[in-house]
């Protein structure tokens, strides 16, 4: 059995990364050309990693399922990217950023990784600015900052409400440069469906060409997954609708442990479900909570138009419950508070499943122009989708599935439990514990790709310089290809009556109701059985027209959903195992008198790393104990 070794370097927290870099093995420039690296994923993590590795002289092959890297889901990030620059002179520092993330994650992340993420954050901003990312600026010409939930400093860099787009396009431009220089080759419109492991080392991938349907083999000395999160398991979520878990799931089945799969962030400010056709829950950036105030009527029966409900009849429940942080409480806290009000019958809108986010006061104080400058595009977006104008009446919002803190387990070097298989960005479990703070994912993705992986991967590859190019006729490639074609054949043969999408909707419903914002033992057990049933039905009744040898979007969907069933069961298993509440994982059995999450540090201070056994078997739980040497575990209070 694989032993879990997090390989955290010795020494004081602030010196670990320096120590690691000073002692890491290197590959000399002449040898780098002889080494091939596969990067799957072109979001901020994958693009920044691939460009940097190309720059260093490695041969890099990059995969994504979109037509171009620029469309990766990272493009949709809105609010910003954090760094500990302390430009506002408001007491920020690397340690404070680290501390906020550890606390924000409810003490379920690894100190050393989080500290390093904070440590490299400033360099990422410098890198992006140098690449021409037009971040917002002050009149004096310096970079502007704003504040995000769960912190008391302003450390978020932004480009209006399209920070992810600008940051991704910055990383992508670096990638284009390497394509121009010939160090990086792009393989777009590919679904990576299996990871090839030879003699215990990741040596390649099997991918389906989405235009021709051809199954391709690609070999390399190491494989990097930067495949993003799996929040689309809820069907309706804030993610790009094609986001999926297939690559990470394939890695899991090949021996990579899955870390904390049930830790999913439900974002408090998304558009509510408006109708049964809805395919997407559009996020309303957290930055809106800087100026917007969240409320519901004090009286359940108050059906007046929100503009006609006077101040004294409004319950600004976040300000009431959490006076210190008010509307800027962390996401998990904000989401649960909204759910609590709606469950108690105070929700607004036709379904009663939404709350108001109101800009009236901000517009009065700062003027419409100032608000438009900050949030103009978000207001337009809201107006367009809902038909209601947020300058005139409050927005209606509700929590939605948004980000997966869980992901492939990695050690300090970002390597999974398969040698030579690395996971970066949202696809790993590493930096956000049980809850992620706003603007810290872009920060992690850029840090992983630009500044961390290039060192740790080189350290691994230093031992591979004598390995010749990997041939794709190895038995392991054959076996992986058979595995993929076998699965596709099996799907095509079902020839049932229902669309893949209809199964996805039903799966999403089960997960949202029982493994979403609140979980309990009974519900989880029930959900497990329901998922099993649904999975069986899927394999009997899904319909995929056409053939696998052509562009076939129904087949693409079916492959992804088939993997979601397994992951859903793993999430439920993980949520059942963790009988405490922590961060976004709220076990109803474990709460304080005032309804806050109750951690049980004596029992659950570990990362749950799950090992795959076989299709029918139960996964094996490995525990990585979390050791806190630099922070004191406290009740996470935002009051």
């Amino acid at each position, binding site marked *: 059995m694989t032993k879990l070794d997090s390989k955290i370097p010795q020494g004081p927290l602030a010196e670990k990364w320096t120590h690691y870099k000073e002692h890491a093995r290197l590959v000399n420039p002449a040898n780098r050309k002889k080494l091939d690296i596969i990067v799957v994923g072109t979001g901020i993590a994958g693009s*920044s990693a691939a460009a940097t590795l190309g720059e260093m002289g490695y041969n890099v092959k990059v995969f994504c399922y979109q037509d171009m890297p620029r*469309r990766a*889901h990272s493009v*949709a990030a809105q609010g910003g990217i954090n760094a500990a*620059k302390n430009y506002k002179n408001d007491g920020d520092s690397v340690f404070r950023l680290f501390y906020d993330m550890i606390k924000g994650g409810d003490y379920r992340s690894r100190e050393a990784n989080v500290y390093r993420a904070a440590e490299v954050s400033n360099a990422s901003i410098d890198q992006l600015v140098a690449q021409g990312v037009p971040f*917002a600026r002050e009149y004096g010409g310096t970079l502007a900052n704003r504040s995000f939930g769960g912190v008391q400093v302003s450390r978020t860099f932004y480009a209006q409400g399209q920070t992810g787009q600008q940051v991704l396009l910055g990383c992508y431009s670096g990638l284009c*440069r390497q394509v121009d220089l010939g160090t990086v080759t792009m393989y777009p419109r590919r679904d990576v469906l299996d990871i090839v492991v030879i003699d215990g080392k990741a040596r390649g991938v099997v991918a389906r060409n989405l235009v021709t349907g051809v199954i391709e083999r690609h070999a390399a000395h190491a494989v990097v997954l930067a495949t993003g999160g799996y929040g689309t398991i809820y069907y309706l979520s804030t993610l790009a609708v094609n986001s999926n878990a297939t690559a990470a799931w394939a890695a899991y089945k090949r021996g990579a442990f899955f870390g904390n799969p049930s830790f999913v962030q439900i974002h408090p400010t998304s558009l509510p479900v408006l109708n049964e056709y809805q395919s997407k829950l559009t996020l309303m950036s957290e930055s809106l909570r800087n100026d917007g105030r969240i409320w519901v009527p004090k009286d359940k029966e108050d059906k007046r138009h929100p503009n006609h409900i006077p101040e004294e009849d409004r319950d600004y429940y976040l300000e009431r419950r959490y006076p210190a942080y008010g509307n800027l409480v962390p996401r998990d806290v904000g989401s649960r508070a909204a759910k609590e009000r709606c469950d108690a019958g105070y929700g607004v809108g036709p379904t009663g499943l939404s709350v108001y986010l109101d800009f009236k006061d901000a517009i009065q104080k700062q003027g419409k122009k100032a608000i438009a400058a900050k949030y103009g595009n978000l207001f337009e977006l809201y107006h367009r989708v809902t038909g209601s104008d947020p300058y005139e009446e409050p927005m209606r919002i509700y929590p939605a599935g948004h980000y997966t803190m869980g992901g492939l387990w990695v050690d300090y070097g970002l390597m999974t439990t398969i040698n030579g298989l690395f996971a970066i960005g949202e696809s790993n479990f590493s930096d956000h514990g049980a809850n992620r703070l706003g603007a810290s994912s872009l920060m992690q993705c850029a840090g992983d790709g630009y500044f961390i992986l290039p060192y740790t991967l080189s350290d691994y590859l230093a031992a591979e310089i004598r390995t010749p190019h990997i041939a794709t006729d190895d038995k392991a490639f054959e076996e992986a290809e058979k595995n993929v074609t076998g699965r596709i054949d099996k799907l095509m043969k079902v020839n049932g009556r229902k669309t893949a999408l209809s199964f996805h909707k039903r799966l999403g419903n089960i997960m949202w109701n029982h493994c979403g914002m609140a979980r309990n033992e009974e519900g989880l057990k029930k959900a497990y059985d329901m998922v099993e049933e649904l999975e069986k039905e899927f394999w009997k009744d899904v319909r*995929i027209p056409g053939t696998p040898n*052509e562009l076939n*979007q129904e087949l693409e969907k079916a492959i992804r959903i088939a993997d979601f069933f397994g992951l859903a069961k793993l999430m439920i298993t993980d949520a059942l195992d963790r009988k405490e509440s922590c961060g976004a994982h709220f076990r109803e059995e474990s709460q304080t008198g005032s309804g806050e999450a109750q951690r049980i540090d004596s029992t659950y201070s570990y990362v749950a790393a799950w090992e795959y056994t076989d299709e029918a078997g139960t996964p094996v739980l490995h525990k990585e104990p979390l050791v806190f040497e630099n922070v004191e575990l406290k009740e996470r209070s935002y009051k």
Partner: protein
Amino acid sequence: MKLRLKIWRQPNATEKGKFATYDMDNVSPEMSFLEMLDSLNGTLVEKGEMPVAFEHDCREGICGSCGLYINGHPHGPQKLATTCHLYMRVFRDGQTIVVEPWRARPFPVIRDLIVDRTSLEKILVAGGYISVDTGQAAESNTTKIQKENADESYDSAVCIGCGACVAACKNASAMLFVSAKVSQFALLPQGKVEAKRRVQRMVARMDELGFGNCTNSYACEAECPKGIKITNIARMNREFWKAKVCGQKTV
């Protein structure tokens, strides 16, 4: 609502395509255009027919994947909106809607409504970047950038690469797309060093790839879902001539 859809169907790049007609009677005005197509596709799949292939991902107007030519307009009749942000409430009950892929020589059809837009990427590969190796950047605030310039640069940088400008142009010109990238960098001090080489290489690549000339019809600006301004083209032309006059030979 009841609608009649005339949709371009083409099984692959080599076979000929044709319009197919579909009548839908249960369209809700609340649906987005893509959700309406999801619903049509659901019916087709249940009947065992191939669904209409179209591209989409973020469904919130930012990834640039979606792009349908609807009733003679890229992204349909609504201004400043991508197809995924087009809602059925803008159509009338009983209306006929014609849906086609982008039609432009540099964008060959792959299947149905999906075209190959990677020619746009090839232009960026020719110079749509600032050459700075990882870790070599100076402390950001050592270079101050006028807020107005940063904002204007941002306004050009918001292009989503959907290709609507090319589809809208009778010459299939990519000038709006290219000039937006050139402008983003031309407005920033970081972009100055490579400015001449950039504009010359990008323009040359654009010509090579078969994009047409700009004849000032302004259709691109009118159809751009992100409001990218035509003034970018003027700026690019200035940059281009500046580079020519200075005799830059690195093309």
